[in-house]
């Protein structure tokens, strides 16, 4: 990851932060460049979509480098997996996967600078110290900036196995630092893919079929072509027949009707003049690549409707399913139970609704390709781009802009491929733009889920068996090895799925975002049936899992799980009399390597259930940037409330019934809580991940609070479909 031959970073859009500073950057390693004047530039390797890695990852480097954070400038790194690592934002993995490599890079660079000073001063390196970007030799009183030794340091071989700082002595990490792009954001500088401009750039839009399972039958573009600024209208195939797709090559439509013109508005207006005929596509096939060679996946041809989907799910729920985990003898336990509690939960397809709609810029020539825009995983798109453009990967350059939201949707590269193919066809630089309607109706949704939970209690109201049978279109959400697996003698987890032509993809905490909602609501109901406090009930089960765990592969750490529950109980004043005026709901979950627990305090406000306060406790190990981390948790809570109350797509004969924000309701300022109290468990565990873990338990905490507020349990999301009180816009 450390090399000396690489040149200056790309600059998406406008000037970078170092505007006005000297261009004499001396590269110490792939991440660090220093000027003779001692300005230190640190590259952020990972794509930024609001998780603030642009600040936190450079902080890690600056810490071990012992740089003065005030003098550090940060720049987005280019796509270069040799120098800059995996460069993939997703799975709450950015900090977790870069933690050690960046510490090593910073420490190694510091070592090289110390070596350079030691050589220049002819003193032993053990006597050289550093502080805030300067080197010192105490004995002789010599000192010098990093900048003055940068040139010399750059020629020193990169050391391996350099000692890292004690995490208790951090000066930069574990201290709140401001967002390095804050000023650019509030002053309207070009930052996002949609802001990117290029000389001679054309705008392209795709007229997708109106619904899933449809394809273009015929089109008449004669009126469109007459419109001002319009260059071309054509059909472009995305993948050839039999093209082997990887997991993130998902696409909904393969035959793309493209309109190309000069400006965004011209193309938006001209599109409307297209005369189009669509027809059912019928059953189709996707060829998927895999470790064991390629396989064919049938894509159903039916034009689906939500009502029919719900009915089908009810049928499938009664059929035998795939066993995911079994402990003990659940069948007998249920037979002998004194009481069986069974509940079924449902949740709809969700649209990611990133604030910045999908877009990508591509400039493809015969020799090379340059792509600029918002994406989460450039590395996963290169192989496909290479195949589609018939161009070696090293001739394809991808610049990552800041993303106006990702949430998993921008991990799928179809829009890069589309932009590239369009640019190649029209032989010009092109920015492909999705309107909000295009974006919301394209697919790659969070799947439609259901789960039936059953619990068996004996005569003394002890939990003797637990059964979850989950299904989904097109996949279920069940994580079979998660709590309460391991805490119950007899346990059964099953899953089933119904294939669909509605495309799906990762959505903030895939699977977990529903699994937690259902499971944590069910545990609440169980606790009530057993006459137990919901937090105490969970802690009892966790204690059981610690003392006498059942089965193998219990995918959680009991102490850390119990830890967040205990802390949220304390911080929320769970049983304090002054909190009685609130309807309180609690939920906790473990996913993406971190633990989260929320207490939601709900009241009725203007005739509508309103979350006034939330107490959130997270255990994600070492927190790099505490205030920004709190921002992330607040955001996950608001996101969870909004999606739980309102989120959801419905279909009628393949057509999505919500295509903009007037129909797809999003949470707004007046519904956001007054207070979200965030606490991080203090420990020195290597950072585990924060983007997703706080999100899944919010849904159930809200549902459990709703029960106390309106006296009714909600089993289907969005909750507004169950409560008229939530419905009045």
């Amino acid at each position, binding site marked *: 990851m450390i090399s000396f031959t690489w040149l200056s970073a790309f600059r998406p859009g406008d000037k970078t932060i170092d505007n006005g500073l000297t261009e004499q950057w001396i590269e110490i390693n792939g991440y660090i460049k220093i000027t003779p004047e001692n300005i230190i530039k640190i590259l952020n390797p990972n794509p930024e979509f609001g998780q603030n890695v642009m600040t936190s990852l450079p902080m890690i480097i600056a810490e071990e480098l012992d740089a003065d954070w005030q003098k550090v400038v940060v720049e987005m790194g280019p796509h270069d997996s040799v120098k800059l690592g995996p460069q993939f934002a997703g799975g709450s993995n950015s900090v977790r996967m870069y933690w050690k490599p960046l510490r090593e890079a910073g420490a190694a660079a510091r070592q090289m600078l110390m070596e350079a000073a030691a050589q220049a001063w002819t003193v032993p390196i053990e006597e050289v110290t550093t502080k805030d970007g300067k080197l010192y030799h105490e004995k002789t009183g010599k000192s010098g900036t990093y900048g003055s030794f940068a040139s010399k340091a750059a020629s020193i071989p990169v050391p391996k196995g350099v000692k890292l700082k004690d995490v208790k002595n951090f000066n930069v990490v574990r201290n709140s630092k401001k967002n390095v792009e804050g000023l650019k*954001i509030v002053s309207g500088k070009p930052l*996002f893919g949609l802001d990117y401009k290029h000389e001679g750039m054309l705008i392209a839009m795709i007229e997708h079929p109106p619904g899933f399972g449809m394809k273009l039958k015929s089109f008449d573009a004669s009126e469109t072509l007459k419109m001002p600024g319009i260059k071309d209208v054509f059909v472009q195939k995305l993948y050839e027949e039999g093209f082997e797709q990887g997991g993130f090559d998902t696409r909904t439509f393969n035959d793309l009707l493209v309109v190309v013109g000069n400006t965004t508005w011209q193309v*938006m*207006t001209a599109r409307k003049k297209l005369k189009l005929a669509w027809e059912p596509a019928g059953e189709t096939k996707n060829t998927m690549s895999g470790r064991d060679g390629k396989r064919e996946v049938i894509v159903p041809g039916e034009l689906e409707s939500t009502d029919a989907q719900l009915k089908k799910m009810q049928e499938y729920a009664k059929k035998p399913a795939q066993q995911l985990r079994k402990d003990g003898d659940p069948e007998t336990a249920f037979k002998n139970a004194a009481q069986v509690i069974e509940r079924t939960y449902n949740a709809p397809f969700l649209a990611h609704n990133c604030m910045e709609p999908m877009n990508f810029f591509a400039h493809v020539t015969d020799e090379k390709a340059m792509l600029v825009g918002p994406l989460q995983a450039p590395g996963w798109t290169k192989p496909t781009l290479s195949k589609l453009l018939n161009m070696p990967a090293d001739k394809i350059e991808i610049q990552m802009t800041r993303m106006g*939201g990702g949430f998993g949707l921008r991990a799928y590269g179809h829009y890069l491929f589309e932009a590239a193919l369009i640019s190649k066809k029209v032989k010009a630089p092109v920015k492909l733009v999705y309107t909000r309607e295009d974006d919301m109706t394209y697919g790659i949704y969070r799947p439609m889920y259901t789960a039936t939970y059953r619990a068996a209690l004996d005569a003394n109201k002890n939990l003797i068996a637990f059964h979850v049978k989950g299904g989904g279109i097109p996949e279920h959400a069940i994580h079979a090895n998660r709590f309460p697996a391991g805490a119950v003698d007899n346990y059964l987890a099953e899953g089933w799925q119904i294939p669909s032509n509605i495309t799906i993809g990762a959505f903030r905490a895939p699977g977990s975002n529903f699994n937690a909602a259902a499971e944590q609501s069910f545990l609440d109901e169980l606790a009530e049936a057993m006459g137990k406090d919901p937090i105490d009930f969970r802690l009892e089960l966790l204690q059981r899992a610690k003392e006498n765990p059942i089965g193998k592969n219990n995918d959680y750490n009991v102490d850390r799980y119990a830890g967040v529950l205990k802390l949220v109980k304390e911080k929320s004043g769970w049983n304090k009399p002054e909190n009685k005026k609130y309807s309180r709901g609690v939920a906790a979950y473990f996913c993406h390597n971190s633990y989260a627990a929320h207490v939601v305090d709900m009241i009725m406000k203007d005739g509508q259930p309103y979350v006034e306060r939330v107490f959130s406790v997270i255990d994600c190990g070492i927190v790099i940037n505490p205030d920004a981390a709190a*921002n992330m948790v607040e955001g996950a809570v608001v996101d969870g409330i909004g999606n739980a109350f309102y989120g959801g797509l419905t279909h009628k004969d393949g057509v999505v019934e919500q295509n*903009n924000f007037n129909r797809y309701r999003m949470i707004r300022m007046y519904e956001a809580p007054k207070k979200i109290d965030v606490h991080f468990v203090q420990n020195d565990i290597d950072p585990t991940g924060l983007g997703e873990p706080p999100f899944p338990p919010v849904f159930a905490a809200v549902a459990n609070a709703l029960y106390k507020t309106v006296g009714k349990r909600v089993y289907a999301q969005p909750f507004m479909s169950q409560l008229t009180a939530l419905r009045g816009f």
Partner: protein
Amino acid sequence: MITLNVNKKIYNVDVDPDTPLLWVIRDTLGLVGTKYGCGVAQCGACVVHMNGEAVFSCVTKVSTAAGQKVVTIEGLSEKNDHPLQKAWLELDVPQCGYCQAGQIMSAAILLKENKAPTDEDIDAAMSGNLCRCGTYLRIRKAIHLAAEIQRKGGKSQ
């Protein structure tokens, strides 16, 4: 040819008069701080000021803006030191940042007309602006802080 006054500069643009002001600002004038989020006045990412009022530029035709005084986020203050900008930075409000220009422009009208807004005033003024990342609590706090900065003599328009 339509004459526009944007951020105190005069532009002559040759565009269809029905073009939404948003797209003229972004594509023709190259001021990309104002964002496109929905195109139907539902998300507020496109809010700019016209003659001292907030307008949703995605539904405002450029012909309506002809000869009017338009201010975008880039022109909200000379040195990016409007009390709102200061407060936003002080409280580290943004996550992805895409909605924030619109949020600030809407908040600027609130602060112009109400020097000490309550939470209720903020809710009423700001509910046209969506934030997908959920920074509403920070926005609220930042507006209160900006009001305070303004009261203490910070610059504003």
